[in-house]
């Protein structure tokens, strides 16, 4: 049962969330809840074509709509040198189209009006004369010689964006050539969208009298967004106040800067009034960044006993019309180089080629630390293929190849230093909780009765917490994070961090970290994030980075406070500072535990009764540059059955054993795992943004883009092993994304296991019933 926030020593306890009393009352303050005096509404006109030349735009009808204040087109923005904006990936993206449109629903014009309805009405009356061009939707076609050129603005006259590679190509080729066993698999991770229930939006509120722009925005990275806005708009950074209010889920969707944001800022600057833009669900799914669209080929070389010798991966990455990936700048393919996973490959090589197509731009890391989901899915699928080839149990092939506990810190062949892990223990925990052997027996019995039953494993390793400043930056800004703590005279604290939660529970968990360091309770510590005027600079919340980065900053800022507090305590206890010891809750005189003072007495003294010459006050700020990333891992097991008549897959059991190092709040960690597993389930079985050959988005709303409801979502079981990170101040690693990264392969491996007696080794996600039924049909398993 969850505990109250007044609990002492709260670290590791399931403390009830401090954010909930306002949220269950409907008193959250989300972007669209903010209504300012004189506020105008903006709506965007969008292209119906995936690829077309704009011959002309007529606005006269639209201007006739009562209440319309202004209409902005690409030509207007061109005059301000704002028709293009930089993407986080170092490419550029059209704000409003000029010349031609490159994807369906691309932004073409922005209307600002007195009401939402008037803006929408006017959008309908904007007349655009398009000359349709041949669309390219398949990234492999886009790369062919003679394919239509999509990005005429670039010096490079083809559709290839970048080539990135890592590892030793020659050594890998040699090792594969000499491997007794080689398996090769083509694995596609289709295009999906994070689709948080709250869409993206902003209000730009420029006050001409003060020159200050207040920008309310659904932002996972408010400080970075302020800097980008300052660079793009030319406004002085200190005159931009970014407020990221309560956020209704992000999952990576709210990391980039979008054309609608830029247009609303331009309109507010011009009109001197607040301008609100909130996207519709269709705009959300069809335009603000998608994820995945990775087309991967992997080869594993191994001994006849299944000991891996080499891994080689080649990937085509479809980025759509603009490379709007939200990756650290030196990593065009994100952290895909985690693709060797939990296994001790002596040698490996991976390459990724980015490609333009006439599809929406992206992609973001959807509940994922930058392409880690793609990498984990790939390796966990292909290791399964190897097990099938060698007729080995999927648990056994993993045991034979796991990085062993004594190998940590482990140097991976693709350049990472894994911090810690005990992969065999994590797997054993999952297998024991399920009684794996009994489960296999049941499977054999049911198979004998003609049932299609499968068990799938995934034993993934993630890489999170970007990241150390020598490697990680976004447009040059180092990816540290920060925390500032102020202790007030009565011993109550306000702490502000550079991150911005979207449901992860920071108001509780970071309060637990700080309270535990300072002998306070969670209730004593108020956490504030998302306001750039008050919070210290940080890079935001995504990629499971908050706990590894800002969580470290919180602990270390608290320890700075404790250093000064020790001096004050010595003064109060009338002993020398070296004779004061922290007993976990109070400062005590050494050898005399009954003589002790707590943080509230010390705090009061910091303002009323200081040692001679000491600076008053009790506060500290810490900018934490993590020395390494953290490497959470997990062992997931799925048991499924397949309906022969319909092809429907039922997840009968699923257990997720995660090792995210030190656990701050078990209840919150389990909640994160449940949510991530459900998204992983959606990715495996339901979610896909497909396009037809003309570039029409076939799933631009929740009726066609299917996310799991309570009926489809399985019941989840969780477990844990704890292998602390040796370098993180409290040993925590981050967990939000593990379940989404690790689970898709477990589902798919289970489906393959059910069908492998009939020769199936690979199936393509999402596993819609009709797709599975086709596989059954092909193998004579259904009528």
């Amino acid at each position, binding site marked *: 049962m*969850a505990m109250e926030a007044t609990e002492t020593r709260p670290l590791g306890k399931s403390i*009830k*969330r401090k*954010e*909930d*009393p306002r*949220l*269950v*009352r*409907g*008193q*959250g*303050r*989300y972007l*669209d*809840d903010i*209504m300012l005096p004189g506020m105008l509404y903006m709506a965007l006109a969008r292209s119906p074509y995936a690829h077309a030349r704009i011959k002309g735009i007529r606005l006269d009808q639209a201007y006739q709509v*009562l*209440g319309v204040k202004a209409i902005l087109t690409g030509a207007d923005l061109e005059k301000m040198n704002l028709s293009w904006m930089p993407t986080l990936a170092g490419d550029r993206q059209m704000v409003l189209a000029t010349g031609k449109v490159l994807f369906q629903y691309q932004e073409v014009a922005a209307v600002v009006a*007195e*009401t*939402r*309805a008037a803006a929408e009405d006017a959008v309908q009356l904007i007349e655009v004369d398009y000359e349709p061009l041949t669309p390219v939707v398949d990234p492999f076609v886009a790369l062919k010689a003679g394919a239509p050129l999509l990005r005429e603005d670039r010096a490079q006259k083809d559709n290839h964006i970048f080539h990135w590679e890592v590892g030793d190509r020659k050594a890998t080729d040699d090792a594969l050539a000499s491997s007794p066993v080689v398996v090769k698999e083509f694995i596609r991770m289709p295009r999906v969208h*994070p*689709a*948080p*229930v*709250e*869409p993206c939006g902003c209000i730009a509120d420029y006050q001409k009298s003060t020159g200050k722009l207040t920008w309310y925005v659904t932002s996972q990275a408010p400080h970075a967004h302020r800097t980008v806005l300052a660079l793009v708009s030319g406004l002085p950074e200190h005159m931009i106040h970014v407020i990221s209010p*309560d*956020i*209704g*889920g992000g999952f990576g969707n709210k990391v980039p800067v979008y054309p609608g944001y830029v247009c609303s800022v331009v309109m507010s600057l011009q009109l001197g009034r607040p301008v609100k833009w909130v996207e*519709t*669900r269709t705009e959300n799914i069809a335009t603000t960044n998608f994820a995945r669209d990775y087309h991967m080929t992997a080869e594993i070389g191994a001994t006849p006993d299944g000991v891996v010798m080499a891994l080689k991966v080649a990937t085509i990455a479809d980025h759509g019309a603009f490379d709007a990936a939200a990756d650290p700048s030196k990593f065009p393919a994100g952290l895909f180089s985690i693709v060797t996973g939990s296994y001790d490959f002596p040698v490996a090589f991976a390459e990724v080629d980015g490609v333009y197509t006439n599809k929406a731009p992206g992609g973001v890391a959807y509940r994922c630390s930058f392409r880690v989901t793609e990498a984990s899915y790939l390796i966990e699928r292909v290791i399964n293929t190897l097990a099938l080839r060698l007729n080995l149990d999927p648990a056994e092939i993993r045991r034979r190849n796991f990085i062993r506990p004594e190998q940590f810190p482990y140097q991976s062949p693709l350049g990472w230093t894994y911090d810690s892990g005990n992969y065999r223990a994590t797997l054993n925990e999952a297998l024991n909780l399920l009684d794996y052997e009994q489960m296999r027996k049941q499977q054999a019995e049911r198979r004998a009765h003609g049932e299609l039953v499968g068990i799938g494993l995934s034993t993934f390793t993630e890489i999170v917490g970007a990241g150390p400043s020598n490697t990680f930056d976004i447009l040059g800004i180092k990816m540290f994070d920060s925390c500032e703590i102020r202790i007030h005279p009565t011993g109550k604290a306000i702490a502000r961090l550079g991150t911005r939660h*979207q*449901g*992860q*529970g920071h108001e509780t968990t970071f309060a637990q970290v700080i309270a535990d360091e300072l002998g306070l309770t969670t209730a004593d510590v108020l956490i504030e994030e998302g306001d750039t005027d008050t919070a210290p600079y940080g890079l935001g919340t995504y990629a499971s980075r908050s706990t590894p980065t800002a969580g470290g900053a919180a602990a270390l800022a608290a320890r700075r406070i404790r250093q000064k507090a020790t001096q004050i305590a010595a003064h109060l206890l009338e002993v020398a500072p070296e004779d004061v010891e922290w007993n976990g809750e109070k400062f005590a005189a050494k050898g005399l535990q009954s003589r002790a003072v707590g943080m509230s007495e010390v705090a009061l003294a910091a303002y009323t009764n200081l040692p001679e010459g000491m600076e008053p006050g009790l506060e500290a700020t810490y900018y934490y540059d993590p020395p390494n990333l953290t490497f959470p891992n997990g062992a997931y097991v799925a048991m499924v059955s397949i309906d022969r008549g319909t092809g429907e897959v039922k997840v009968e059991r699923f257990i997720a054993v995660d090792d995210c190092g030190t656990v701050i709040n078990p*209840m*919150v960690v*389990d*909640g*994160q795992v*449940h*949510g*991530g*597993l*459900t*998204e992983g389930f959606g990715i495996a079985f339901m979610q896909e943004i497909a396009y037809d050959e003309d570039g029409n988005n076939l799933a631009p*709303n*929740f*009726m066609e883009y299917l*996310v799991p*409801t*309570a*009926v489809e*979502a399985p*019941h*989840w079981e969780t477990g844990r092993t704890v292998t602390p990170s040796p370098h993180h101040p409290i040993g925590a690693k981050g967990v939000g994304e593990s379940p989404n990264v690790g689970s898709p392969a477990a589902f798919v491996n289970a489906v393959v296991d059910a069908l492998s007696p009939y020769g199936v080794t690979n199936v393509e996600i999402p596993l819609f019933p009709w797709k599975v039924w086709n596989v059954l049909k092909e193998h004579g398993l259904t009528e």
Partner: protein
Amino acid sequence: MESRKDDTHRMVTVTINGEMRQGLAEPRKLLAYFIRETLGLTGTHVGCDTTSCGACTVLLDNEPVKSCTVLAVQADHHQIDTVEGLETDNVLHPLQQAFWDNHGLQCGFCTPGMLMTSVALLQKNPHPSESEIRHAISGNLCRCTGYVNIVKAITDASHKMQQEPAEV
């Protein structure tokens, strides 16, 4: 302002959370926006505009409806209940308390709609099974929790409301 000419607007009168309120609405104005923008009750959220996500669920004459698919004028002279009306005398409704106790919410955006659907469920079926709960809330999308703790919370509330019938 000009766009609010009398011939394009209708006066809509509703009893919302027990209080009679009036406001002008264009005939095409959706109830969700009437509640949020005209009456200023922003606990009812809009997540899709297409009746899919359920974040805008309110009770209309005690029936759960998705207020993005009801016109404000259709609610004229009807009773509406929203999340803001659940708390009584500074005491949370057992469902609000159970969502808090069981970690039944994360970002909180779907929560008001989820609560209103749950209120309607427990009024009709005070002791629902897990399967009945899952079917009842299947029109309310949650992207954060995976529903496990929402189901737990509703079950918990149903037990507590049984113990304290006065709270229903």
